[in-house]
């Protein structure tokens, strides 16, 4: 029953393969928990990409002119490439708000799953060179990559990948929005949202979920801190490199008044210019690392959402159970005539006299019905809760493994990037040193 090859790991951006340690790990199957896919992951059948971005203008809901960006989603059956025919991919344009709609639908429909996050709505943790403007081409490009990553994550998820709304998002340009609304998820969304925003206390919190929520909080906090430091550090590093460009200019000017020293100075100056220019590539690569961190910053949020929804489910169960208990108690009181709990009715009846036996009979009957319904509800809610816990925990374990793998890979590529930066630095300064020694 075990699936020999686990769902494919989806990187944010095509990354150079470092070694085969990863592959060997996957075949070891140390875990007793196996990653059974509920249905085949969509990615095995279909290639998905967000190929391009374009600016559009149009009238919005309040009939005002607006400019927005649309993204081209391309899909192609996997076999096509292997056949060698290479047909034109199917494609359609979607804007960011439609991605948001899709995600909201998934959140409501699969509250027990850690739903992959979208790239950020607005540019945060910017350093001075990056524009915070949504229309900025660099921002749009990074968003395009983030959206593609989102689609690939969903398409490789054992449960989400088989969702029909998701499939039609990728394939049906027109009428998709209507289809989504027809599912009636909005109503569910609204009520859930209201419930989630309300403060409630669960009597017996599930320890595991509480720990997971706490983990999500900590992860979010630490990644935010890291991103803030990174933004400031990027600014500073930019300054360090760029000022070296001034050496280029002054060495050139100086060389003009020297005889023998002139050539060495002049060529060293060129190397200083090259050094200054190299920071742009360095920071672009670092941006990629920041994007990887950001994805998990938002993933932490999705994780916390699952825990919160579990809490809500449990709360509703507890409420139903509590209600049932109180109804049972009322029945007992009515039957035995003893008043155990304080109730206004009890007091008024004491003051104004007991009810008639007929009234009591009617009440008892009503209570019986309510108790029956209540027991049904509790059974239902209990089952819901159990189902939720089971499904959620499976996905949380899957998420944990994905996170460990992805973050480790991110750290490795960050280290490799630093190594490359150091090597380039050594080379430039060696070149300059050679020029200086010829002065």
């Amino acid at each position, binding site marked *: 029953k075990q699936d020999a090859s686990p769902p494919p790991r989806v990187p944010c951006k095509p990354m150079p393969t470092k070694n085969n340690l990863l592959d060997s790990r996957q075949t070891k199957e140390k875990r007793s928990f196996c990653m059974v896919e509920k249905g085949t992951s969509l990615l095995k059948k279909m290639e998905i990409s967000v190929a391009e971005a374009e600016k559009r203008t149009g009238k919005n809901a309040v009939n005002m002119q607006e400019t927005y960006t649309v993204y081209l989603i391309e899909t192609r059956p996997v076999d096509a490439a292997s056949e060698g025919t290479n047909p034109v991919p199917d494609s359609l344009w979607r804007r960011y708000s439609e991605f948001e709609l899709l995600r909201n639908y998934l959140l409501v429909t699969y509250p027990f799953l850690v739903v992959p996050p979208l790239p950020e709505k607005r540019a945060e943790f910017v350093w001075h060179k990056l524009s915070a403007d949504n229309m900025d081409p660099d921002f749009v490009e990074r968003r395009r990559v983030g959206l593609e990553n989102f689609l690939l994550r969903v398409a490789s998820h054992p449960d989400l990948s088989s969702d029909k709304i998701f499939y039609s998002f990728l394939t049906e340009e027109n009428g998709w929005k209507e289809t989504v609304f027809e599912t009636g998820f909005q109503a569910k969304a609204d009520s859930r949202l209201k419930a989630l925003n309300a403060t409630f206390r669960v009597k017996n919190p599930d320890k595991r979920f509480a720990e997971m929520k706490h983990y999500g909080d900590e992860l979010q906090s630490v990644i935010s801190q890291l991103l803030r430091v990174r933004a400031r550090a990027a600014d500073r590093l930019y300054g360090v490199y760029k000022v070296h460009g001034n050496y280029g200019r002054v060495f050139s000017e100086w060389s003009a008044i020297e005889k023998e020293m002139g050539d060495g100075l002049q060529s060293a100056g060129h190397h200083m210019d090259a050094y200054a220019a190299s920071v742009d590539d360095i920071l672009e690569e670092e941006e990629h690392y920041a994007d990887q961190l950001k994805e998990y910053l938002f993933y932490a949020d999705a994780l916390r959402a699952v825990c919160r929804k579990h809490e809500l489910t449990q709360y509703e169960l507890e409420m139903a159970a509590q209600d049932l208990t109180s109804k049972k108690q009322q029945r007992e009181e009515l039957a035995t005539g003893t008043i155990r709990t304080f109730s206004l009715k009890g007091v008024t009846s004491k003051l104004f006299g007991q009810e008639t036996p007929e009234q009591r009979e009617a009440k008892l009957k009503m209570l019986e019905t309510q108790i029956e319904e209540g027991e049904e509800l509790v059974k239902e809610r209990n089952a819901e809760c159990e189902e939720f816990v089971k499904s959620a925990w499976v996905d949380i374990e899957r998420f944990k493994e994905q996170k460990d793998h992805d973050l*480790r890979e991110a750290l490795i590529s960050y280290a490799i990037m630093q190594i490359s930066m150091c090597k380039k630095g050594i080379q430039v*300064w060696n070149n300059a*040193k050679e020029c200086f020694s010829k002065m």
Partner: protein
Amino acid sequence: MSAGAPRSLASSGQKSIQDICHPLSAEESALNPGSAADTGLILPNGTPVDTSSLASSSSLLNRLQLDDDLDGETRDLFVTVEDPKKHVSTMETYITYRVCTKTTRTEFDLPEYSVRRRYQDFDWLRNKLEESQPTHLIPPLPEKFVMKGVVDRFSEEFVETRRKALDKFLKRVADHPVLSFNEHFNAFLSAKDLNKRQGLALLTKMGESVKYVTGGYKLRARPAEFAAMGDYLDLFTQKMGTIDRIAQRIIKEQSEFLMELREYGPVYSSWSSFEEDLHDPLEGVSGCMSNCSSALEELTEDMSEDFLPVLREYVLYIESMKNVLKKRDQVQAEYETKLEAVVFREDKKPPVPSDVEKCQDRVECFNADLKADWDRWENNKRQDFRQLLTGMADKNIQHYEKCLAAWESLVPLLQDKQEAEGETS
């Protein structure tokens, strides 16, 4: 060519001292009769002017030995500055350095000396040299004042940087064909106690004569080569100033970057504290960041302590060089004015006043000394800057190499998966 402009001196070439005539000697006038007539300074009876002045023969010597690369055989004076030690007294705390001398020169009583000197003593020496040898460029000293609180005057690095600069200073004086014979220098190297008040008696003849050159004479035309020197020094000062500003700016930006870099370590560490599988990798990254921080700290410190001071020395030194150029102008101006006064006198017959002769002598010696020292300075400057800039490149290379080592050692740690990973299920 104006009447007052001195002839440019004959090149010494490869001749030995004995074969070279003093510019005012009769033999030389025989070689260039025409030019002699122009200046009108040849004594009618053909007798040579007294050439025994210390200044003229020393300037000849100066012109000969332009080559700094003396082989060990010709060098007869070796000086080193070593062994810095801290002295604490009730009044003050200061550093002394051991100055070791080895020499075969007869001007020294002993072949070897070892004395302790402090910065003040070096400063005294330099001032004395400037006073007594005004036609020469005296090598620079490291900066006198350091900003308290910014630089630790007693840190190992600062003391070592200073020692190296003082060593270079003495070596350059020792290698100078004229300065190395200066009596103040001798006293500095040999005297047990440096009595700094005895300076006045040791002024050289040339020093004395130049010292009392009065200003206020107008210079007709500065010779092209000296004008070029002045222009060059102005431009050079500008460039040095710019480089100083750039270096300071880089240090500032690096320090601010360092502040941010230092924040990374703790954040990665605290992250690792609530991770299981990622605990070791994150701790590793944290450690790596600390290493990079240390490396960067060392770089900025080195640049502050080694690079900037040397740059500043040169800027200070140029001020004193410009003063020497100005003095040269004054000496020339005086000569020209006095010569003109004589030329325009009614009776051209009588012997030229020795006053004017002395002036011409001064001008020509000054020019010779200055030219030779300028060439020496150019060489030293080239060496110094080659060393300085190569040093800067080296420091940066070392910084990157340290960071590279840190990151490279991290990668296997990141890639290494713990065998115990599957136990949690």
